[in-house]
């Protein structure tokens, strides 16, 4: 443990000043604080303290810190900071933009400032990040700053502290992720950043939020029907130069959107005529659903998710399938739709769930580029992990929906069906979730009641760097099982062993992060919860973790082991053995070695021997009691026996007397 001097200090240099919060720099649920650079006091920095259960973008951190990105707030450092003995938080330290926001809501910026100062800078950032194969996913008007006083040094804000795109307003998201929940928008691509840049330009020039007054679903439907350009651009005063740029940036088809090369040429002053987009493909004949006519399959998919019951009857009637086959002329999608109806819903839950499952699969086929929908949850490609973490942070309907989605096998079916699709003569190789991961999650959900499995396991499998979300840790961040065991030790010491080091989260976290324990959790799942073996196996897992990951003495966890083993010891019938084992346990926990405790206690053998000896004792005891009762009630029998035996003795004595009399008479009278 670090000493008090290092409390709140990152890498012995950046001191996070919790007493100086910077509310305006908060990033979603992550709180911002002033930072003191202990080596260079001229640095003006701020820290983002990551909220518990927030899946920050660990996969891009190293790439971002490896090289400076001009035009983006500089990430100075990051890592785990200890605030007190048991409070660890993940912290990012950035340059503080002292010049403030580049854009204020309600005050539009001039075309010169936007296109002359801000956009080129952000284009540089996009180009720079694209060269490293990462996307920013946080390009929006209120995330652009002036690094220095006097409106100079434009920089786009950080992009690592939250799931990709989760802080974006829905209008900033392209059709691939616009209808997903904020935390489930997925990594996206360079094209997503280019699209966001376009929306940002609209936002800055217009001065007001481009999606104002519309719900995300309305925006999504409008973009599908008319195209983003048509929905957003006419509202702002735009020159032809801006219109060309926006038409290129806001094309809803990523393959027709301006790519990096065109953007570079634009930055260098070569303007190209863009190919404007017009929303989703349209069928020549409409499909009537719920009183409305639909020409776009994606808009239809959106409408179906709103009214699943009605959608199901339409699906069952085969109308959608024949519309897709005949009107849209998409035989492949038609076949997959027919298949989704034929396979129906899986698992338990009745007709309602079957309807939802079928509609979810059908809408995934109709809108295979958009987010996957199921009840209250929706997520884009690569966004399931983020939305699952969100669901755990905010217990509620989303979590229930995801659990239902994973356990019912709907997602497996949808992903499998999606991967059957051919694009340009080739089979697709990516989907909303990898087929391997989703199959694994389905398997974990089959054992959802068992420790180390269930939705928690899916959470940690899908978010490989997410800290453990166990309430036992009280929000502290731990990235791996080694840190977890050390933190649990501190907490156990603090609480005198009265913690639960194996709640559902910790178990799932350990099973995910420590492959060596996976077999043990599988074994544990086969043992009934109330069995002694269950507790012994739990302790064994903890012991194995200590042995493999953190072999130093763990007196705190040993106290927990004591509290877990004491009820087992108490089941021992023999007082002598019980007391002996209790004394032995008290002695052996002092050494802080969990595996040693199990070895020394040898509880399994002791219980076995105790049970066998107790059986014998019961038999002996019953026999003793029977004997006592027989003896106490045996007076009559004894009397009878005494009578019989007494008479026998008397007859022996009499015969002896007779023989004596005969002998004496012979000697007296005949001699």
């Amino acid at each position, binding site marked *: 443990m670090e000493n008090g001097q290092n409390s709140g200090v990152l890498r012995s240099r950046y001191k996070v000043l919790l007493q100086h919060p910077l509310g305006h720099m908060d990033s979603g649920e992550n709180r911002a604080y002033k930072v003191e650079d202990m080596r260079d006091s001229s640095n003006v920095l701020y820290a983002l303290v990551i909220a518990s259960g927030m899946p920050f973008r660990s996969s891009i951190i190293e790439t971002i810190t490896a090289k400076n990105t001009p035009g983006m707030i500089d990430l100075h450092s990051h890592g785990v900071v200890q605030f007190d003995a048991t409070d660890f938080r993940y912290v990012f330290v950035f340059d503080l933009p002292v010049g403030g926001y580049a854009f204020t809501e309600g005050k539009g910026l001039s075309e010169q400032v936007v296109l002359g100062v801000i956009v080129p800078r952000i284009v540089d950032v996009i180009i720079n990040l694209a060269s490293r194969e990462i996307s920013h996913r946080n390009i929006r008007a209120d995330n652009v700053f002036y690094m220095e006083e006097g409106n100079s040094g434009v920089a786009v804000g950080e992009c690592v502290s939250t799931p990709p795109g989760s802080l974006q307003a829905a209008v900033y998201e392209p059709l691939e992720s616009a209808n997903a929940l904020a935390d489930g928008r997925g990594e996206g691509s360079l094209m997503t950043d280019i699209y966001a840049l376009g929306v940002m330009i609209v936002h800055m020039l217009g001065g007001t939020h481009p999606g104002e007054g519309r719900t995300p679903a309305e925006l999504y439907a409008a973009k599908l029907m008319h195209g983003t350009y048509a929905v957003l651009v006419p509202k702002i005063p735009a020159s032809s130069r801006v219109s060309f740029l926006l038409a290129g940036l806001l094309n809803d088809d990523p393959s027709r959107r301006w790519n990096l090369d065109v953007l570079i040429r634009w930055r260098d002053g070569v303007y190209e005529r863009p190919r404007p987009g017009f929303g989703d493909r349209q069928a020549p004949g409409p499909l009537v659903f719920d009183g409305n006519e639909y020409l776009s399959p994606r808009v239809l998919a959106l409408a179906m998710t709103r009214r699943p019951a009605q959608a199901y009857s339409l699906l069952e009637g085969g109308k959608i399938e024949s519309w897709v086959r005949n009107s849209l002329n998409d035989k492949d999608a038609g076949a997959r739709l027919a298949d989704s109806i034929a396979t129906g819903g899986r698992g338990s839950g009745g007709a309602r769930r079957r309807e939802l499952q079928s509609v979810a699969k059908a809408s995934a086929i109709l809108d295979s580029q958009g987010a996957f929908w199921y009840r209250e949850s929706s997520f884009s490609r690569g966004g399931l992990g983020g939305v699952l973490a969100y669901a755990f942070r905010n217990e509620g309907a989303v979590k229930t929906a995801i659990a239902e989605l994973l356990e019912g096998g709907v997602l497996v079916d949808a992903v499998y069906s999606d991967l059957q699709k051919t694009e340009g003569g080739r089979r697709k190789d990516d989907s909303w979730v990898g087929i391997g991961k989703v199959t694994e999650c389905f398997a974990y959900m089959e054992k959802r009641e068992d420790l180390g499995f269930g939705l928690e396991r899916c959470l940690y499998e899908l978010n490989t760097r997410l800290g453990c979300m166990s309430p036992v840790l009280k929000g502290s961040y731990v990235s791996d099982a080694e840190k977890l065991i050390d933190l649990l030790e501190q907490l156990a010491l603090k609480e005198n062993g009265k913690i639960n080091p194996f709640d559902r989260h910790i178990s799932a976290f350990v099973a995910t992060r420590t492959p060596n324990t996976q077999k043990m959790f599988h074994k544990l799942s086969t043992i009934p919860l109330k069995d002694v073996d269950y507790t012994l196996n739990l302790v064994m897992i903890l012991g194995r973790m200590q042995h493999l990951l953190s072999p130093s003495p763990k007196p705190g966890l040993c106290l927990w082991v004591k509290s877990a083993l004491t009820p087992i010891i108490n089941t021992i019938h023999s*007082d002598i053995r019980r007391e002996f084992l209790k004394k032995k346990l008290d002695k052996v926990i002092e050494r802080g070695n969990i595996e040693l405790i199990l070895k020394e206690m040898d509880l399994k053998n002791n219980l076995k021997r105790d049970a066998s000896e107790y059986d014998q*004792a*019961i038999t002996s005891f019953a026999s003793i009691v029977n004997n006592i009762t027989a003896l106490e009630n045996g007076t009559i029998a004894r009397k009878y026996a005494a009578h019989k035996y007494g008479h026998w003795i*008397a007859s022996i004595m*009499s015969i002896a007397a007779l023989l004596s009399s005969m002998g004496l*008479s012979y000697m*007296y*009278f005949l001699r």
Partner: protein
Amino acid sequence: MSTDAQSKTGAKGYVPLLVFIALGSVFAPPTIIVLAVGMIPSIIARFANPARVPGTIASMIALNLAGVIPALGFLWERGHTIDQALDLLSDPYMWLMMYGGAGVAAFLLWGVPTVVLAFYEVQAKQHIKRLEKRRSKMIEEWGAQIIEDSKIQPSAGKNKKTPKS
């Protein structure tokens, strides 16, 4: 064995006795007179013994006979005549000797079982004491639960696990 068969076996047992009495009455009437009078307690005991406890009659006959034999000795010594037999029977010491044997038999038949019973009782009490000591020791080692568990089938104890405080 049926009652008829038993009575037949019992009747067969008396044949030698009856032959002996018949022969004795012919060839040694004084002896038979002394025997008949001296053995009256045994004859009474034979017919008045309702329990028919094995050994009681044997004891009675043996001790009665033990008292009669010296009287017969005196008869044969003084002259084996009916007068001598009657004379002998008029001697109260002879009566005391003959019937005293029967009396001792009666005393033994009452006293020895009483003594044996007393011994048995003492032995049983000591055994109960020992068993109770063992019982207490087992309760001390295995807890009071063993009292309840022992009332069920002993094999049920195999899976019985009652937490101890």
